[in-house]
């Protein structure tokens, strides 16, 4: 595929997202907008977690911790530096929209990098643990991160972090969802993807073939954590308020459920499951007392009857579209 066609394709995707981002808020009521936006954030979380759990086979149930790091760091950045920075730039003639976007982007990236760093710190010591132990260690780290953040007064502490600049919106979420999906897709459909999968399938055999399994586990963790951090940043700047109660291990479990429902090892599965599971609580609102009961029953039944989730390790292929999608992946 030539560089020209690739550039045009990217332009088309970007244009489509901008279009959606500007038109949708006018066409759709705010309640639905919120669901769509939160779905987008959950897509980023689910796809990034799938990289760790699904493709590399590492039981991580502390994803909310990485999300929290990204959320709080980016919020602190824009809260303490953003508003003044935008004002200063405005005085220098920079249009406000551009300045705001610049600061938000910087905040998101910083949040992502901080989350990636915490992913490295969590991953390095724990990745030699097996299965259940790794799961519990990641759970523990997630909680420790949360408790630490809870005790930092500069970001609100127990009262929560209020008055965050509300600069994120659907367009931002859609762009980053596309980026996350694109990165994950390209990575997984490359030779590196096979390396990740080999770690999941049989670590000992993978090592015997010369693959540095520890390095690949760490890479999965760091990448997954980065995007979780970005998702956190988008989340904080959308709600304009943060509290550590949003980042308990219940949140981590919710993301795990999305990945399992969609199928560990299926990116399209994660996307669909994220949308379904964000919308589901709202659909069940009429029976809201029983909502969680139904939800947990569904989960148990799903595990007993179809543990591979909706798509297992396959991607959604709609005939011609499916084949085209496959052709976009690695040359045969």
């Amino acid at each position, binding site marked *: 595929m030539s560089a020209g066609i*690739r550039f045009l394709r990217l332009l088309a995707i970007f244009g489509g997202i901008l279009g959606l981002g500007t038109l949708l808020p006018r066409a759709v009521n705010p309640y639905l907008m919120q669901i769509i936006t939160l779905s987008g954030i959950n897509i980023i979380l689910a796809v990034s977690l799938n990289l760790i759990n699904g493709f590399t086979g590492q039981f991580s149930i502390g994803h909310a911790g990485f999300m929290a790091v990204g959320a709080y760091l980016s919020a602190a950045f824009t809260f303490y530096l953003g508003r003044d920075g935008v004002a200063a730039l405005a005085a220098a003639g920079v249009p406000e929209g551009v300045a705001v976007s610049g600061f938000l982007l910087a905040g998101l990236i910083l949040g992502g990098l901080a989350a990636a760093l915490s992913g490295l710190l969590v991953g390095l010591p724990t990745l030699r643990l097996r299965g259940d132990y790794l799961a519990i260690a990641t759970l523990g780290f997630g909680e420790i991160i949360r408790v630490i953040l809870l005790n930092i007064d500069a970001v609100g502490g127990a009262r929560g972090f209020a008055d965050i600049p509300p600069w994120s919106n659907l367009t931002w979420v859609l762009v980053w969802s596309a980026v996350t999906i694109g*990165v994950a897709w*390209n*990575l997984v459909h*490359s*030779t*590196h993807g*096979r*390396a990740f*999968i*080999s770690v999941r*399938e*049989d670590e*000992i*055999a*993978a*090592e*015997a*073939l*010369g*693959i*540095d*399994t520890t390095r690949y586990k760490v*890479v999965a963790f760091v990448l997954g954590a980065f995007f979780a951090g970005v998702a956190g940043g988008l989340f904080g700047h959308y709600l304009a308020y943060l509290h550590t109660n949003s980042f308990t291990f219940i949140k981590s479990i919710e993301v795990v459920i999305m990945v399992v429902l969609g199928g560990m*090892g299926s990116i399209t599965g994660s996307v669909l499951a994220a949308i379904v599971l964000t919308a589901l609580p709202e659909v069940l609102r009429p029976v809201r007392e029983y909502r969680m009961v139904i939800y947990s029953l569904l989960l148990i039944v799903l595990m007993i009857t179809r543990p591979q989730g909706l798509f297992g*390790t396959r991607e959604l292929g709609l005939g011609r579209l499916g084949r085209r999608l496959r052709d976009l992946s*690695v*040359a*045969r």
Partner: protein
Amino acid sequence: MALLDLDHVTHFFGGLKAVDDLAVSVEKGELFGLIGPNGAGKTTVFNLITGVYAPTQGRICLADRLLNGKAPFQVCGAGVARTFQTTRLFRSMTVLDNVRTAFHPALHPGLASSILRTRGAMRAEAEIARRAAELLREFRLERVADRRSVELPYGEQRRLEIARAVATGPRLLLLDEPAAGLNQTESKELMDLIGWIRNRYDLTVLLIEHDMRVVMGICERIAVLDYGRLIAEGKPEAIRRDPRVIEAYLGEEVPTS
């Protein structure tokens, strides 16, 4: 010149001495057999060579480079490939992808290049695909390239595992009971295959095997292990008649008075 040298290697598992002062060398290009009763420590020797365990005592050298303490993936990088007693194929992957994975360490582009789909990354992928397809043809597995590896008949799975190991471009190939579970025809095909790949890929082959037809049929030299100790070493004919070897496998001869 000795390609692989085990110099007074001893290994303990807690209080159990699994390998006892083992000293043996494998010459470049040799087809070398490692036999002995069950539990003699043969697979442990493989695990020591490939870095799964670090020997408690002794040195393991590949062409005078020390292998002790290297991680398994580094040992592979140094030129040692292996297969396993029970096949460890990547079950959810196709036959082709199993082999493509083996080409990854040598040919992979950078992570960023792969994410951005640079021309260099695409070229690397094409090269991996080309070499993998070629290898499958040589191993007569091209017809099943797109089947999931777990769907192959057992004999072909074993062949695939060997192909995958060869794909890493090793100098030394360790085969752990490659004939286990194969019938007579398949074993004969295996013997031909091993001889052929040794010549075709300029390999040195170290083979653990219980099937004596295979061992006596293709090995040029044989070492016999019992309780972790080397009890005999030499050409197949000599080993076959060695009383210590017979005793290890069958027990002492009962004197008939």
